[in-house]
C-alpha cells in the first residue's frame, strides 16, 4: 500500500511537471503570433466583435481580443497599462490622459458612430412611442413617474398607456453610453441638466434598476415589465426591442436608425484630438455619439506593427461592417487625418 501510494503520488507530480514543461515551449511557439488585448465600451461591442473575427480571417498572425467591460473600465485599464488598447464612448478627458501608464501618450481614434435608443417594455404600448426631449429629460430625471402621464399622453393620442409606474433601467457601471445619453438629454432638457447632469456614472433620482453593460440594460428591460432604459441601437434591434421616437431640434419625431444617425452626425466638426460630442444635432435622431479606440503613442517594437495594422484595418475594411449593424462610419477626411497621426506620432519604445 505504502509503496503504491508513494509511487502514485510521485508519478502524478512528475507527470504534471512534465506536462507543464512540455507545453510551455508550445505556448512560446504560438506566442510568436502577436495578440492585442483591448477592453472597454459595450456600446460598440457587437461591432468590435465582428471586427475581431474579420480581421483574424484576413490576418492570421495577429489575434485581437476585445472585452466589453464598460467605458469606465476601458479607461482605467488603459491608464494602468494592462491592455494594448482601450475603448470609450466618452473618449478621455485631459485629466484622464495625464494619468496614462508611464506617460505613453494617447491617440483617440474614432471608429464608429451610433444611436442610443430609449427602449421600453410596456405591454400594450407599440413601438415608436413619441417622446419630446423634455419628456425624456423628465422621465429619466424622476419627474414623470407613470406611463399615462399627461406629458406622454399628449404626444401619443390613441395609444393605450398603462396606469403603471415607469421602472427605469440605467447602467450599473461607469459608461460612455450613459455619457452620450446624459449629454444629449442635458443639452435639450434644462430640468435634466440641473437634476442629473452629464456624467459617465451620475447619481440618478429614485433608485432605478441597473444592468451591467448595454447588454445588461437590454436584458433587464426585456425581463422587467413596464421598464424603460437606454440601449445602443445594434443590441436593441437584434433583440427586437421596442424603442421610442424622440423629437429632435427641428420638431420631428425621429426613430433611431442608420440613416437618422448619419443625418445627425453629418455636420459635426472633428477637432485636432478627434474628441467631439454632439449634444443636440440640428437634424436626424437626437441621441447619438461617437465611440473611440484609445491607442498609446508608444508601443514595444514587437507589438507596434500589429497595432498599426489593426487600426488601419478598422479605419478601412472595418468601416464597411459598420452600416450592416446600423453604426455610422467615420467621415473619410477624418480617417485620413487619424491615419496621418497614426504614422506620425505612434512609435516604438
Amino acid at each position, binding site marked *: 500500500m505504502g509503496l503504491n501510494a508513494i509511487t502514485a503520488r510521485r508519478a502524478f507530480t512528475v507527470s504534471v511537471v512534465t506536462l507543464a514543461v512540455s507545453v510551455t515551449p508550445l505556448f512560446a511557439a504560438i506566442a510568436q503570433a502577436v495578440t492585442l488585448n483591448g477592453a472597454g465600451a459595450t456600446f460598440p461591442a457587437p461591432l468590435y466583435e465582428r471586427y475581431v473575427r474579420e480581421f483574424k480571417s484576413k490576418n492570421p498572425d495577429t489575434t485581437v481580443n476585445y472585452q466589453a467591460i464598460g467605458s469606465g473600465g476601458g*479607461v482605467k485599464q488603459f491608464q*494602468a497599462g494592462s491592455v494594448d488598447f482601450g475603448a470609450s464612448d466618452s473618449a478621455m478627458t485631459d485629466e484622464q490622459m495625464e494619468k496614462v501608464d508611464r506617460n505613453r501618450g494617447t491617440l483617440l481614434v474614432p471608429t464608429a458612430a451610433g444611436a442610443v435608443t430609449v427602449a421600453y417594455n410596456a405591454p400594450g404600448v407599440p413601438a415608436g412611442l413619441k417622446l419630446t426631449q423634455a419628456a425624456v429629460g423628465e422621465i429619466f430625471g424622476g419627474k414623470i413617474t407613470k406611463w399615462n402621464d399627461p406629458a406622454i399622453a399628449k404626444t401619443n393620442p390613441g395609444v393605450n398607456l398603462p396606469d403603471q409606474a415607469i421602472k427605469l433601467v440605467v447602467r450599473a457601471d461607469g459608461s460612455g453610453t450613459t455619457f452620450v445619453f446624459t449629454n444629449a438629454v442635458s443639452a435639450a432638457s434644462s430640468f435634466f441638466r440641473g437634476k442629473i447632469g452629464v456624467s459617465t456614472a451620475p447619481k440618478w433620482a429614485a433608485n432605478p434598476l441597473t444592468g451591467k453593460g448595454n447588454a445588461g440594460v437590454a436584458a433587464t428591460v426585456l425581463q422587467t*415589465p413596464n421598464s424603460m432604459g437606454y440601449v445602443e441601437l445594434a443590441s436593441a434591434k437584434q433583440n427586437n426591442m421596442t424603442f421610442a421616437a424622440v423629437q429632435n431640434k427641428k420638431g420631428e419625431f425621429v426613430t433611431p436608425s442608420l440613416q437618422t444617425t448619419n443625418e445627425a452626425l453629418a455636420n459635426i466638426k472633428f477637432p485636432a484630438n478627434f474628441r467631439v460630442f454632439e449634444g443636440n444635432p440640428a437634424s436626424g435622431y437626437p441621441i447619438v455619439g461617437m465611440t473611440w479606440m484609445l491607442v498609446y503613442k508608444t508601443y514595444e517594437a514587437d507589438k507596434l506593427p500589429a497595432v498599426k495594422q489593426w487600426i488601419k484595418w478598422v479605419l478601412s475594411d472595418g468601416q464597411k461592417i459598420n452600416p450592416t449593424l446600423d453604426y455610422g462610419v467615420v467621415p473619410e477626411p477624418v480617417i485620413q487625418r487619424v491615419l496621418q497621426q497614426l504614422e506620425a506620432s505612434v512609435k516604438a519604445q
Partner: protein
Amino acid sequence: MRPYRALYFFRSRLTQMTEALEPTQSNLPQRSPVPTESWVSQFGDGGFRGISFLAALLTASIPFWMCVLIFKDARPAIAKFGLAFLWTQEWNIDQSLFGALPYIYGTLVSSAIALFLALPIGVAVAIITSEKVLPEGLQTPIAFLVELIAAIPSVIVGLWGRFILIPALEPFQQFLYSHFKWIPIFNTQPFGPSMLMAGVVLAIMIVPTIAAISREVFLAISQDLRNGAFALGATQWESIMFITLPAAASGIFGAASLALGRALGETMAVTMVIGNVNEISTSLLNPGNSIPALLANQFGEASDPLHIGALMYLALMLFLVTLAVNAIAAVLVRTLTRNA
C-alpha cells in the same frame, strides 16, 4: 551499519524525540539490512524539515500580504471618511462621496433572511440523517445529496436563480405584496430581482453547511444522553427535541455562524438576483445591493484612488466581519465536538 550511527547523531542534535528513542548498542539485536538509501534520506531530515518550514512560512505570508494590500488601498478612504463611512448613505462617484450603508444593509439583510430560512431546514436534515428516524440505508444518500448542493458553483446557482427561480416565485412575491402590504417588509410592488430572492438563493447555498456541521454535532453527542431519556420514558422525538437538540445547541449555533460567514461573502449568486440598486428599503420585495456584488460591478473601472479606497474599505470590513463570524463558529463547534 556505521552510516546509521552518524544519522542518529545528526538527528539528535535537532530533536529531543529521537534522543529518547536512540537505541543503545547493547540492546540492538543483529538486524537485517535496512532498505537502500532513498533520495529522501540523502536529502537529509534537516533539509526536509527546512523545506516544510519554508512552505509554512510562504503559506502564512499570503493572508498577511493580502491584508496589507487591501489596507494600503483602503487608506485614502479610511483617512477621509473614518467611521462615518459605515452609516453614510451617499454613493456618488463624480463627487467622490462614498457611504457604505446601503451595501452593509443589503449584505446583512440578505444573509439574515438566508439564515432564517436555512436554519430550520438544515437542522431538520441533520436530525434526519443522524438520528434513527429513517432507515439506515437512506441516511447516507440524503446527507450526500444535501452536501452536493454545496458543490454546485455559485454562478450556476445564480444562473438558475435568475432564469428559473425568479419567474417561478413571481406569483409568490405578488401574493405577498397584494395580501400583506400592510406589513412594512412587503409593502412595495415586486418585479423580479429583490432582497427576498437573494435571501432565498443564499439559503439554498448555506443549507448544506448547516446540515453537515449540525450532523457532526449530533453524532458527537454521547449516546448515554439519549439512553437516559429513553430510560425515563421519552419517545424518539421527545428525546431529540428536548434532550439532544438543547445539548447540541451551541454546536448548531456554531454551524449557523459558519453558514453566515459563507453567506456574507457570496458574490455571484447574489449579484445575479438582487437587482444591484443602491437603496435601503424596509421592503424585502425591493431590489438592493450587497458588498461583494458592488465590488464585482465597480472594481473593474474604479480608477480614482478615493473610489478604489472606498471599495477596499468595504472589502476590509467584509473580511473582518466574516473572520469574526468564522472565529466564533470554530470555537463553538470545536468545544462541542471535543467535549461530547
